[in-house]
């Protein structure tokens, strides 16, 4: 994340900071809103939030890196979240993960070179009866097999003309 020095428009944070900068205990909320705005937590925003909340960049980054929700890189157009919950594990989630990695050549928290797909292995999505499960953006796909997963990804690629 240290290398991510793409500059962002910090003015976008103004509304969030106006509402929360002086409310104690709001750091996680500020970070969540920041991620909603940029899609991830830009390093410049970490410094900016620290300054405006009277905190330190170490404290802000310390909190941000503690929680799995926060990302430090922009994600691809399609965010694939594969459930690693117990029910999915028992029903073969490992094979689903392998299939996605084989098809896309990316690991956890990585994005394909064309910027189309990002992969994120997540804890229980709570659709245990449909295990194994993955979500691509807002859509949930259940009762997966490696072949089914590959077809879903290929269909998306085709739709995107890539």
């Amino acid at each position: 994340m240290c290398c991510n020095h793409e500059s962002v428009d910090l003015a976008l944070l103004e509304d969030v900071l106006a509402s929360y900068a002086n409310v104690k205990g709001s750091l996680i909320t500020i970070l969540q809103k920041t991620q909603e705005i940029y899609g991830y937590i830009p390093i410049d925003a970490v410094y900016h939030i620290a300054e405006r909340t009277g905190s330190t960049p170490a404290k802000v980054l310390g909190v941000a890196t503690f929680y799995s929700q926060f990302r430090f890189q922009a994600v691809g157009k399609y965010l694939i979240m594969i459930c690693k919950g117990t029910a999915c594990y028992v029903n073969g989630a490992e094979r689903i993960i392998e299939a996605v990695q084989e098809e896309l050549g990316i690991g956890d928290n990585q994005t394909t070179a064309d910027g189309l797909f990002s992969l994120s292995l997540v804890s229980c999505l709570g659709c245990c009866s449909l295990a194994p499960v993955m979500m691509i953006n807002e859509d949930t796909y259940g009762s997966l097999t490696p072949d089914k997963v590959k077809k879903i990804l290929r269909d998306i690629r085709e739709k995107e003309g890539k």
Partner: protein
Amino acid sequence: MNTRIVVGQGSCGLAAGAGAVYSALEAKLNASIPAELSITGCIGICYLEPIVDVYAPDGKLYRCVQVTPDHADTIVKAAETGDFALLNDIVIKDEDAQFLSKQTRIALRHCGIINPDEIDAYTADDGYQALEKVLKTMSPEDVIEQIKISGLGGRGGAGFPTWFKWNAARQSPGDEKYLICNADEGDPGAFMDRAVIESDPHNLIEGMLIGAYAIGAKEAVVYVRAEYPLAIVRLTNAIKQAEAKGYLGENILGTGFSCKMRIKAGAGAFVCGEETALIESLEGNRGMPRLKPPFPAQAGYWLKPSNINNVETFANIAWIINNGGAAFAAMGTENSKGTKVFAVTGKVKRSGLVEIPMGKTLRDVIFDIAGGIRDGHEFKAVQMGGPSGGCIPAHLLDTIIDYRALGATGAIMGSGGMVVMDETTCMVGIAKFFLEFTTKESCGKCVHCRIGTKRLSEILDRIVKGEGKEGDVELLEELCTTIKDGALCGLGQTAPNPVLTTIRYFRHEYDAHIRDKKCPAKECVALLTYSIDPEKCIGCSLCAKKCPVGAITGELKKTYSIDPNVCIRCGACINSCRKGAVCVE
């Protein structure tokens, strides 16, 4: 009377396609058809989702299951003509209906029945009557007394008496107190709390308000997992409605009692299920547990007296007040009262939410209600309590659902995750799965948990790779004991449970991995050997063509063979062979 068509829209219903079913029904309905379309939450028959309840004008229920958008025509036609026999093909079968009829529902009593988006649906079914009774006729001490009589224990897993925590917070000096609901349901394989919030949010609000009155809190916070967006939407809406109706806010029901409520979305950290870590997170910090004492009842949120209960605990409160503590205590066993909700998943035929009185056996839940193991496999173990719990083997299936009885097996009651496994699940593998989880989720504050879970994972990893050594099991046991004794919070203290219970009941599997380099469940890839049975092989060459590394050689119409030194154990051959000639050991 119109026909009512109610589409179940909990998270898993939506995942199974309930949204498309709703849209299809909406498109077919028009003003001339005497039917109303609405939604409900999750009834917990997850394996049959999407579910559409059709209430005929005479009130009779036709519960349609595994509904697709293609069924919309039939459902609308039934409503239009009054010929509900049209639904026969999709109406739930008797054996499936028993999944529900064999349950006793208290915490889930409205789930999948009422519309979670409408407060009137809740008040029409006794909603907020308990709150009114409490505020108008009972003192906080009376409330605590009823909860004491009920014997309700914390449903987050430990079963600590709820009245005791409430009383401690009530007795703590200070005007500023907080009531907190722990909805950070993090156990992989558990979704009871999500169902309650998504399906019956007012029941949670009512339970929390009664708790706030009992301890003397004017502010209540619900800490919800970020992974539960729908729960957050429905609860936000419910809070607004309750405020508008005067059940929440200033001078509630004109009684002078005031309490506000807000939601705090968690950001993804399993350790935040631990109450002091949750408080740290509420304050905007890294969710690392505090030393106890002081307990939250003395110095919790912002160091003020605070009480934290789990969602399911609160979901029982209104029922207890309405029906009396004694009615709740009449169910269950000597030391575990009332009912418990379980999320039954894994290799069972019928997975979903099961609420039963304490004192029933594991066999009742897994075989009688959930239908036993699917695909003709055999029951091997049930994992209870998630990463803090343990695996219970077949010979203990008659263990009763009771905090002590389950604790004696080495597992725990837990929050309600019940993942059922068959003979194809490797028990060393499942221990490794949980330890990888706790290693990742350890907050790093104490050495025993941070480094101990890491070392456990490493040892388990080498065992499943066939690199286990004589003495590894003893080393695991020693390390487990040290972590249990030394860890600061519940996460670390219970993290060794999956390892200890699998060693206790499935020691032979560990030995097979370490000594014979075999995985009895045939799951650990590194320990598998693929071969071709010359008796069955017809020399069709399909497997050789499928093999990605060219490990299979032979001549057409003669026998093929696999070179174990080249084989990468991908399983492509076994899937391609039509004669069942490829064997794996």
